[in-house]
């Protein structure tokens, strides 16, 4: 069992820890990892090395482009048949393993999420090509399931053998008369899940967005981008919007339908939750349709309140503002009651978190509310802008590993462009309202906290040894490693099958979860009692 440390008088300088970590590496590896680990100083601009290729053999936690595209962005949309073109594994591993909850309106509405579809490529498909089988699979899927849309996801071998999934999609779209489109999200593209997000964004933009010019459905129309409804997170947000009278047209893509994404361009405002995975669509929608976007965070009660108020502020409607204020006041009262009861029990505890591309930042708000200190944090696959803020985007060099991920040329739609929104944006900006802005994780972290990109197993071991944290937040691959050390791990990808953690109810859930995890006595029972006593040497052994 590790002993816990007290950091009430500021965080220790982790430079020595960093040195120890680097000392184990071959020279070239050390040089690279040096730049990916930053001793944070929120007062100055610091550069971190991120979104670069993974070091072979380092034991990364990263996944691939296919996971980012199919698993993350398209997986949660319930009324689309997602066919994975490849051998069976990619399809199998993305089958219900992310907890994107969905709630169809009726018993008969389409919901393909409990299914996984694959062309199950065999060696002859590798040798002779898989396009014929892919077309056949699409026809079979259409006949069996009669979906409104079918998407095709390329896996590693597809790009290598030269199957043209886009041509197949075009042909099948013409033949079947339904929307059909492909994704070149082969696992080797880019350096992580991140490339898959970008590819998914591009295809959603090209094949879905703006295809249904439907009439307004409410006074305040918004989209929520980059919220995947893990453990019901999006349900919490949906309920608040409904109560406030805000019409949520479409969520990309938790609890979503393809149908709803088709008219997302009729919104007045886009809200970006997960900046990393969906900022591309936010940018493209603004360029084409003039819809401004703001960064929101519904993780953490105060953050949720702030985000709601920011939306009300955007619309500038007295009735809406009053409703939002009433909701916030009512909910914060509930939250505060729980927070006050739990905070004294967990205050001063030490946490670290290494999560995908956004939560390592968002969850710091929740920890802050409880007085839990975050001493080290990082992402698997975020880019410099997620760490340092969007202001660094012009300085980011696109390296050879990422250069082949397409950047779409987006043009203004002269007919549908919302000049009124562009004017409103200009006016609000005058008054200091922030659009298209994300300041990143590092400015929000304490001095001397250690920021690490693409943390690996060796670094995880050393971090635990150095900080002796009370809580480690990461994913399933890390969970049981960390817990063997006697340190509880909270999964912040799948919430350990709990949640929701967004908004006010979610904050209460999370506080209670922190109390459970930090209050349990089981970690003190790890050592058997006889380990603490002198050994008794047997003299009355039974003969074998």
């Amino acid at each position: 069992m590790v002993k816990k440390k007290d950091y009430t008088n500021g965080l220790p300088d982790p430079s020595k820890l960093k040195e120890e970590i680097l000392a184990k590496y071959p020279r070239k590896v050390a040089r690279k990892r040096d730049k990916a680990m930053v001793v944070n100083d929120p007062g100055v601009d610091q550069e971190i090395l991120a979104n670069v290729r993974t070091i072979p053999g380092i034991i990364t936690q990263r996944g691939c482009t296919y996971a980012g595209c199919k698993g993350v962005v398209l997986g949660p949309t319930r009324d689309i048949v997602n066919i994975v073109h490849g051998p069976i594994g990619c399809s199998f591993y993305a089958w219900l393993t992310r907890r994107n909850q969905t709630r169809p309106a009726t018993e008969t509405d389409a919901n393909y999420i409990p299914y996984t579809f694959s062309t199950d490529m065999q060696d002859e498909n590798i040798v002779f090509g898989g396009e014929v089988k892919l077309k056949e699979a699409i026809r079979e899927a259409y006949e069996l399931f009669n979906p409104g849309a079918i998407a095709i996801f390329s896996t590693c071998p597809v790009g290598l053998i030269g199957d043209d999934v886009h041509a197949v999609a075009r042909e099948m779209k013409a033949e079947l008369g339904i929307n059909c489109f492909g994704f070149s999200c082969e696992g080797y593209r880019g350096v992580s899940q991140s490339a898959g997000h970008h590819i998914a964004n591009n295809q959603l933009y090209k094949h879905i967005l703006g295809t249904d010019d439907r009439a307004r459905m409410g006074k305040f129309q918004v989209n929520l981008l980059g919220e995947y409804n893990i453990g019901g997170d999006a349900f919490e947000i949906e309920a608040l919007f409904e109560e406030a009278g805000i019409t949520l047209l479409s969520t990309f893509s938790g609890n979503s339908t393809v149908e709803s994404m088709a008219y997302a361009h009729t919104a007045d405002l886009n809200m970006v939750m997960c900046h990393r995975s969906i900022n591309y669509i936010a940018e493209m929608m603004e360029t084409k349709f003039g819809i401004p976007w703001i960064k929101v965070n519904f993780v953490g009660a105060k953050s949720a309140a702030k985000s709601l108020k920011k939306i009300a502020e955007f619309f500038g409607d007295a009735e809406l503002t009053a409703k939002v204020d009433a909701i916030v006041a009512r909910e914060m009262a509930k939250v505060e009651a729980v927070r006050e009861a739990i905070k004294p029990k967990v205050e001063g505890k030490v946490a670290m978190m290494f999560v995908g591309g956004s939560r390592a930042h968002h969850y710091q708000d929740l920890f802050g509310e409880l007085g839990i200190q975050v001493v080290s944090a990082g992402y698997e696959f975020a880019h410099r802008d997620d760490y340092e803020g969007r202001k660094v985007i012009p300085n980011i060099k696109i390296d050879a590993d990422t250069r082949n991920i397409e950047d779409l040329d987006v043009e203004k739609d002269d007919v549908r462009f919302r000049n009124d929104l562009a004017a409103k944006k200009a006016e609000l900006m005058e008054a200091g309202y922030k659009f298209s802005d994300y300041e990143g994780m590092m400015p929000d972290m304490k001095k001397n906290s250690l920021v690490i990109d693409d943390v690996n197993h060796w670094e995880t071991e050393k971090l635990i040894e150095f900080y002796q944290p009370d809580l480690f937040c990461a994913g399933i691959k890390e969970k049981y490693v960390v817990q063997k050390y006697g340190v509880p791990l909270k999964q912040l990808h799948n919430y350990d099958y709990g949640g929701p953690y967004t908004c006010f109810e979610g904050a209460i859930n999370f506080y209670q979860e922190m109390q459970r995890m930090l209050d349990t006595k089981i970690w003190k029972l790890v050592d058997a009692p006889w380990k603490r006593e002198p050994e008794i040497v047997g003299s009355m052994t039974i003969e074998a």
Partner: protein
Amino acid sequence: MLLRHTTDKVKERNALTVNPAKTCQPVGAMYAALGVHGCLPHSHGSQGCCSYHRSALTRHYKEPVMASTSSFTEGASVFGGQANLLTAIDNIFQIYEPEIIAVHSTCLSETIGDDLGQIVAKAGDDGRIPAGKHVIQAPTPSYVGSHVTGYANMLEAFVKYFPEKTDEKKRQVNLLSGWVEPSDMRELRRIAGQMKVKSVLLPDTSDVLDTPMTGSYSMYPKGGTTIAEMVSMGDSMSTIAMGEWATQKAAIALDNKCKVPFESIDIPVGLRATDRFIQALSKAGKVSVPEEITAERGRLVDMITDMHQYFYGKRVAVFGDPDNILPLIEFLVDLDMKPVYIVSGTPGKAFTKKAEAILSERVPEAKFKNGPQADMFLMHQWIKEEGVDLIIGNTYGKYIARDEQTPFVRMGFPILDRQGHNYFPTVGYMGAIRIVEKILDAMMDKIDATCPEEKVELQM
């Protein structure tokens, strides 16, 4: 309904697989390699595979699962992954210090034609493999066979590399365990111990994927077949290979290399498969069967005779891996149950023949299929045509079980939503007793929950 789009009309499919009853090769290779002491599995492909395979095993065992990857980029995918693997070998030995790196491939490295044997040989020639350390490799193309094939390929790689034939004959029997749980591996060793047969079990994931909580983490836990044990396998009297799909290739390779004769038998699941295992062990070890094993067997038969009324004629749907479900359906038939629907995504012609031999007399109405499109969607359609009293398979069966209100027993890989399966065996007579208990629990729970109040029984 969770699976609201599944209808009872079975339509022939030739291209689309829906809800597969298999996964791909490398995860099997990773599992097999974890059963060797001091070994770090390495996935030569893009890193997504490795993360998925580690996650799948971790979710199944609630244990750390370590493996490294070559982390292919687009460049490597076009020009070959040799540099990635060589760099990985350097980094792994320096940072993580395993005794053995066990490399497997993926559809990516196989499609581009990376020759693992050549790259590993080059690593040796270049002095990248420290003295006393080992790098072994097995090609595991994901577009051939299934996860079981990957297990078989990695097991074969181990017996091709380590066992040596010397002049010294060892009074020991090799046990190639097939893809079973760590608890099963422990049970196999317990049985061999009861029989007083000295055995070498390969692989052996007990004490690797069921390690105790001690407050410290060890990257290479104390379990796993050791190098010395593997080397000694070349001098063993014989080999018992359990499960044709997972172990026969390795048994043949070991026979070819070291002239150790083998007997290929089923994984000892259920009554008669365990009988065959005990007899094979008795013959191989030249020992008689001790009374305590006969007593365990007797307790199993006693339980079956006592509870027969609950089994007789009950219809069962089974899905999983061929080595595991063939002896299971044989056991179900011995319980007088009717395994009516059986699917396995793993291809192999022997499946039909073996299933027919088990089923033709007692369950002639049984439908079974393996290989392409033998998936859980098909099995569910069959269930919709005519229902069953019980479903046995991995966690994914729970969606069907809930929709169809059918009792469900979790067996196979992966089990993601229950704990305990990795602590208690399903092999041997004791394992069979546990299977019977699980079946009875599941079926009785449904009766207790749904029968009219006046029919609730205190006893069974």
